[in-house]
């Protein structure tokens, strides 16, 4: 993520116009390539952060954008501590004598000489007693990308940097296919954002924000909004509007698919939490009469609201498909809305799993008293449902 000093934008009336890099500009491509070459070379030779920073000094002075390229490239690095020495243990030993030795030494030089007379400390003192600071960490790997890809990331990061100052996003998408919307909703859920979704014909309107947004000018959700933004770029058609609080002014940020921004989010599976992956694996191993279907559909709820199940299952013999939607602690309101809807549309083959952090046995009993037609549809779980429990409910449907 880029910080304010790396952002470039023009203000025209109340509009914020990010200054994007031309991804075909040879000079910019060359500057990006120079940055990447230093990182690549650094990873090959396992240089330290300090050395890397020195090598980058000349490049960052050459162009405005270069400092931002460096910042983005740093996010693709893995650094490791130098493992040769147990620095904290050595320091503890040294300091247990140095504080008192200091009083008998005439100068700092004499202090170090005296301490170095102890064979345990002689080498340690000659090197650097704080040799494990981040500047001495080694660059051990770099997730390489092309100069063009770095420019594309730079452009997306210009928008993400602005969204840090936004409170909500409004997105319109036309003719999005179910797979596109499903992917978008998965990202929404992953970043724990709330959305108001309305569908009019083939057009979906989403207002995305955090729960506190209607009251407080908080930046609590800003990072989540910014991180969510690349998921919007995966839609074929999109229009985004955001209000940006920028230097005591409110600016409108309007972008669409013609902005030519490209997402670096390629594969949602990279973000699938471990418990979901484990559920898939155990289900495959233990349950033979049902399988998990790769694609889950987008379902329409009350008043044009759209929702999507977390998982869909198919019975091998009858080919019957049943969906499962899970409600964690931040989805309590959606649960109540879904209960009403499902009670009215029992024909939809949908199971609702409820995290115990929103409802205990008593609350479940209350729900079932209110909606007796959903007896075979509701169940409680803690963190993530068990495979056997889900299989049993599927068989009873």
């Amino acid at each position, binding site marked *: 993520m880029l910080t*304010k*000093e790396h952002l470039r934008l023009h203000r025209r009336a109340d509009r914020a116009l990010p200054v994007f890099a031309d991804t075909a500009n040879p000079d910019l491509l060359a500057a990006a390539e120079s940055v990447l070459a230093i990182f690549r070379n650094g990873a090959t030779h396992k240089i330290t952060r300090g050395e890397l920073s020195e090598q980058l000094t000349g490049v960052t*002075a050459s162009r*405005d954008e270069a*400092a931002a390229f460096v910042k983005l490239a740093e996010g693709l690095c893995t650094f490791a501590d130098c493992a040769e020495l147990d620095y*904290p243990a050595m*320091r*503890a030993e*040294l*300091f*247990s004598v*140095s*504080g*008192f*030795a*200091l*009083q008998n030494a005439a*100068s*700092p030089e004499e*202090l*170090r000489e005296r*301490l170095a007379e102890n064979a345990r400390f002689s080498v340690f*003192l000659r090197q*650097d*007693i*704080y040799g494990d*600071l*981040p500047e001495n960490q080694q660059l051990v790997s770099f997730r390489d990308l092309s100069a063009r890809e770095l420019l594309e990331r730079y452009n997306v990061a210009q928008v993400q940097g602005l969204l840090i100052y936004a409170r909500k996003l409004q997105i319109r998408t036309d003719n999005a296919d179910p797979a596109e919307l499903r992917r978008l909703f998965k990202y929404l859920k992953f970043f724990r954002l*709330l*959305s*108001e979704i309305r569908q009019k014909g083939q057009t979906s309107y989403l*207002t995305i*924000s955090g*729960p*506190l947004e*209607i*009251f*407080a*000018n*908080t*930046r*609590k959700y800003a990072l989540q909004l910014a991180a969510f933004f690349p998921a919007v770029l995966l839609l074929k058609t999109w229009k985004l509007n955001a209000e940006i609080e920028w*230097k*005591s002014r409110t600016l409108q940020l309007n972008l669409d698919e013609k902005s030519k921004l490209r997402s670096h989010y390629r594969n949602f599976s990279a973000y699938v939490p471990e418990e979901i992956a484990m559920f898939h694996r155990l289900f495959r191993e233990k349950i033979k009469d049902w399988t998990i279907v790769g694609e889950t559909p987008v379902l329409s709820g009350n*008043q044009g609201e759209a929702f999507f199940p977390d998982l869909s299952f198919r019975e091998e013999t009858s080919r019957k498909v049943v969906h499962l939607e899970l409600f964690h*602690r*931040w989805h*309590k*309101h959606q649960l*109540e*809305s879904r209960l*009403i809807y499902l009670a009215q549309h029992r024909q939809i083959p949908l199971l609702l799993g409820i995290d115990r*952090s929103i409802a205990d046995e008593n*609350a479940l009993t*209350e*729900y079932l*008293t*209110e*909606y007796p037609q959903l007896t075979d549809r509701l169940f409680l779980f803690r963190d993530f449902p068990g495979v056997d429990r889900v299989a049993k409910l599927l068989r009873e449907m």
Partner: protein
Amino acid sequence: MQHPGNKLQEPVLYFENGVLRVENCHPDQLPEAAARLIRLDPRGNVYRAKASDYAPLLLELLLSGIRVHDQAKAFLPINDLELKKTLVPRPHQKKALESWIDGGRRGIAALPTGAGKTILAVMAIASLKRPTLVLVPTIDLLQQWASILEQWFQRPIGMLGGGSHQVEDLTVSTYDSAVLQMEFIGNRFGFLIADECHHLPGPVYRAAAEMALAPFRLGLSATPESGDARDQLLEELLGPLLCRVEIDELEGKYLSKYRTIRLEIPLEPDEEAAYRENRAKYIQFIRRNGITFRNREDWGRFLMLCARRPEGKDVLDAFLEQRRIARGGRAKFRKVWELLKKHPGERTLIFTADNAAAYRIGREFCLPVITHHTGAKERKDFLDGFRKGTYPVLVTSKVLNEGIDVPEAAVGIVLSGSGSVREHVQRLGRILRPGAGKEQATLYELISAGTSEEGVSSRRREHRAYRIKSEKGAESC
């Protein structure tokens, strides 16, 4: 929408994702004071209120004779919450507690470091007997508070932050963890305490207080005011300033006697020449561009211009170099060495403005350094060693400015710092706690003579604790 179990058409309050959802309740049918607290949320077409408005909303509804079905609150009084040791409060602690109770158990106490803010909080928790969440800015303070609450109440203390995720009736959380967790736990506590509460009005941290139902609130800080719009926000989040005790009111009784000595130290000739050359380049640039640093945005503008103007890189380098020389000339380091020799056996804290200077002292004088790079285990080892006397000197940049309890510290040396009054008062506070055998605490402030540090020093000394103790030391002190 009806909730199961809610057959009556009385307003129902739910706590949901850090805000209140209000059902069966249209603002038009409510008294004006209550209606003002409720808004229609178009995301789901429901009425909502801020979690922090739980108490005033409930009160307004009840005062208007409207019965409320409260599904939001998930805490009850803890009747067996008692102090397990006898606590005899000091007069200023007793006065502060009384002010807080008289103020409706909602407000801020400004007490100097070492005055026993934690004990005031312990007394407030014991008097209120409600599940309590304490917010603290650092992991060191998280552990310190948990340990003190455990001693006084002898029950499990929850911790959020620093790798801990345990919630109990009495829980301590870092501000960062509270912001992340409050949407899930904000209805579990009746009492919210914010230690070093001047952090709370920040654009992110404020959410921790806004997403909490807690009707009862207590803010603690030696320096709660910021002198800007954040003061109003702090009052909205925690309540008004209810009592203030100054350092000099407690000096010699509950705080150590102290003196502050400002030492002006000339730069060496080559450093002075370099300082003047670099400073001139930087001053010329800001004058040419009309930057006065009188408003908050000027710093960002300076950086932006440095990034865009052809000469910007040189100017930025010049700015950094003149600042580095002023903050850490060679003579200052020699003075630190002299002062350490002058106070043999006294526990000494050395403060710097930046990590580089802290590590330079650490390397040259072979001393332990605590910065944000220091791992949790080593930090604990350094602090324990300092308290026991194994490590008589500790060097730090900013991380020990606040809160952490080191009563043994008798000498402070400020090698460099910002112009912030708050930072300087907090640093003084580190050496003021009374300790065994500690007769008088001394804070040295080292200033590079003839540099911008003179103005910085004057700005940060604009506090009663310094004004009444102004003592200028001879260079050879």
